């Protein structure tokens, strides 16, 4: 496309300095700036500025009352060398992320792909069944009712009735059960935005691609998936991956709602809890910003790895 434009323009790019050329391009694309303008201004004010300020705060000591005091990298040193709970939180976060991230990502895609072939009416119902758990803000509380620690909880009651256990299990107060249960609940609510975007993406694929592929010798649905569906869906796959990362690393709300805060012996304490603890309760905003920056770097790293992996899809 850019080649065509170069032909149209009487003056070629070589005749100008880089800045002159950029300026000319900017003038030529006035409409484009009008289109991104409103969004970018709001984005800049309400996202970029706060993030930049938080990164600055991560090098300070700030309690919301006094002016921030520069402390250099002290916060970072304290975080890695002096904060055992943070190390524990890192471990838990990585476990959560490593389990719930890939599983929910792959499940979202597989289920979206499977139901894409159902007849439209049935597909609508099935989509609703899978998507419904993530639609309501607090419906996951049903798990705390089902796994309630007294004998009226459905799981305890049923197990006791069958004679499998004698006394009710305190599901969300027992180190052995907290992590697995929270993972299950997280997965239950995880077929959300990415899942929907996969469904929508599958529906916008040009059907003639599959017919052409069949003629070209694609033998089964798995080959079709690998050589056609996945490569065409790459933009949606990338979108889903970013969401899976933010979801699985930012995981914590569910744990707090189900196990209380802090969880027993910090056994389900995640980086997000640690951050909220310092930012929202102890008002050590500088230190919590440091945690946010570290979490940010971890997520960027995993994003880069996934980007690399996705570029190999379909080859």
């Amino acid at each position, binding site marked *: 496309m850019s080649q065509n434009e170069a032909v149209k323009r009487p003056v070629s790019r070589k005749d100008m300095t880089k800045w002159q050329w950029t300026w000319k391009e900017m003038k030529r694309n006035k409409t484009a700036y009008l289109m991104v303008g409103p969004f970018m201004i*709001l984005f800049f004010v309400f996202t970029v500025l*706060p*993030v930049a300020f*938080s990164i600055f705060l991560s090098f300070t000591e700030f309690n919301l009352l006094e002016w921030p005091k520069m402390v250099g990298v002290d916060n970072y040193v304290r975080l890695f060398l002096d904060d055992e709970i943070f190390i524990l939180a890192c471990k838990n976060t990585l476990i959560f992320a490593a389990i719930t991230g890939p599983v929910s990502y792959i499940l979202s895609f597989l289920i979206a792909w499977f139901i894409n072939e159902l007849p439209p009416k049935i597909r609508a119902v099935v989509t609703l069944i899978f998507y419904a758990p993530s639609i309501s803000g607090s419906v996951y509380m049903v798990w705390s009712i089902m796994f309630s620690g007294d004998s*009226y909880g459905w799981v305890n009651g049923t197990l006791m009735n069958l004679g499998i256990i004698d006394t009710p299990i305190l599901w969300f107060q027992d180190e052995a059960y907290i992590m697995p249960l929270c993972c299950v609940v997280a997965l239950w609510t995880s077929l959300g935005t990415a899942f929907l975007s996969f469904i*929508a993406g599958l529906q916008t694929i040009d059907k003639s691609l599959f017919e052409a592929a069949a003629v070209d010798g694609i033998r089964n649905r798995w080959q079709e998936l690998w050589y056609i569906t996945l490569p065409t869906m790459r933009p949606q796959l990338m979108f889903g991956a970013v969401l899976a990362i933010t979801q699985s690393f930012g995981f914590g709300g569910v744990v707090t709602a189900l196990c209380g805060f802090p969880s027993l012996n910090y056994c389900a304490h995640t980086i997000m809890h640690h951050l909220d603890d310092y930012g929202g309760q102890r008002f050590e905003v500088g230190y919590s910003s440091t945690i946010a920056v570290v979490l940010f770097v971890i997520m960027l790293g995993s994003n880069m790895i996934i980007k690399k992996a996705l570029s190999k899809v379909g080859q």
Partner: protein
Amino acid sequence: MAKKLRTRNHKVVLNRSAGGDAGISFFLILMGAFMFLPMLYVIMQSLKPLDELWMFPPRFYVMNPTLENFSDLFSLMNTSWVPFSRHIFNTVLITAAGTLGNLVLASMAAYALAKLNFPGRKWMFEMIVMSLMFHSTVNQVTHFILLTAFRMVDTYLAIIVPALATTMGLYLMKQFMESSVSDAVLESARLDGASEFRTFLTIAMPMVKPAWLTLIIESFKGLWNTGASIYIQSEQLKSFNYAIQQIVNGGVARAGAGAAATVITMVVPIAVFVVSQSNIIETMGSSGMKD
């Protein structure tokens, strides 16, 4: 190897083995049960009379369904000093304005970022993706300072304006514009003399209808579930969700009302979802999406 072309549901489906179909159906049913049973349990709980809620052994299914919990909830609603209709109005206003505004701003920006080649588009997009990974709790301090400076604290705008620039919607739209809108079609529209705005509205947007319906559902879901916000202090400006949570937190005696509240807050986003889903299917059924 001969390829068999057969039709299923009016569209060409290729190379499907019966064994694969059976395995997939089994998997879907298993997963479907895992997803659906807890949802069903909430509905059952909301229909149980008090003695069934506290009975041993507990039952999954309700024996004598009653609407007592709902009527309980409604009478509790009437005791709050801000009329409940006000909370509903607040949530509807915030949700509608935020969702619509986000849709307009995000799609416009997404179109430009995906299809127009202008200086700066690359780093703009990179920044948007990166921002998704920054945890927002620590941003609240800056948000508060900014919203105070704009005199938006304790108004609807404190929630609506930041929601307009939700980056997830833009990212979604941009990805779809990239994969589903062909440059050739846009180019021919431009050659016919259509302005960039017109091309965007009449050519690109209809092609990504599933994407913006997804954006609407997601944005709606997010705003509808807005609970307590540190930016709004006045009781009469608070959301439906906040108010209903206040009631539910009342304790044990209200266990049934809690389930009823969950069902009520669930119903609206699900209704929105169902409407937009049927819309997606209609558009897709009429085909002619490409070229």
